[in-house]
């Protein structure tokens, strides 16, 4: 169990280092954490993907 924990810690730790204060973007009076900015960016990407990627339609009448 301990081994597993150590492996997990090093795996996740190597992806994103969460030790230390959070990172923020300052832009005039706007201040936002990088984490929140990333989520907003992903939402924009998913929004456009949802509009642009064709929706496969299966069988049935009609087109």
């Amino acid at each position, binding site marked *: 169990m301990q081994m597993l924990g150590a492996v997990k810690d090093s795996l996740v730790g190597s992806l994103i280092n969460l030790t230390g204060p959070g990172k923020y973007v300052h832009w005039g009076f706007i201040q936002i954490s990088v984490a929140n900015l990333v*989520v907003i960016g992903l*939402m924009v990407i998913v*929004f456009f*993907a*949802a509009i642009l*990627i064709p*929706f496969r339609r299966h069988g*049935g009448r009609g*087109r």
Partner: protein
Amino acid sequence: MTTGTETPVESGAGLPEDSHQLSAKLRGAAVAALPPERLMPDRQPAYVASWIYVFGALTLSALGVVIVTGLVLAIFGPSWWHLSTTGLFVNSLHMWSVEVFFFAMVVHLWGKFFMAAWRGRRRATWITGVVSFVVSVGAAFTGYLSQQNFDSQWVSTQAKDGINSTGAGAIFNVTNFGQMLMWHIVLLPLVVVALVGVHVLLVRLRGVVPPFAPPDAPATEAKGTPDSQGEVGPNSQAVPTEGRS
């Protein structure tokens, strides 16, 4: 049970002599507004074949996972979800499904915003969506306050000044753990589920909003919004529909 007059009863119409009863009137109104094939249709208009229409159902599914994992947390209690690996896992499922819920909800509402999906007597659908969003933020907030860690202490002490400045602090005390937990696990989930229920029923009641007419469509077709369930509006003829919309 055999009454000899099963047909009208079984078809939902009831017996003529019962028609004055409240049950018969309520059932009649409900069935007239949302007959089963409209409540759970097999087909949708052709324009619904786009990924953007998936995000309402995705939000709904995420909410389902939030509720089920929340119920599991309630069954086993705080020491389980803080200390056991399974408990921590279910706690994480609860938290991450909330992330998916809000993510999908925002993409959903952007989609509906750019479709102007409040057209054609669909105002209430939009409004119940807006209110669900606001109440969900409250549910997430009280969830953060229910974590019993330094994070929740920090959140509550930051929030108390804001809430006290509104005057609401006297009845809604964010540093009162018991009160916040009750709001999080009883009151706000009930409200969110009720609002979402109305929201989805309204979608079925009104049908999916037809797209805007293309810019080169004849003026008569392009103007006006659908004002009835029959979709008298842009593209009502131009777009082949499959089944009831």
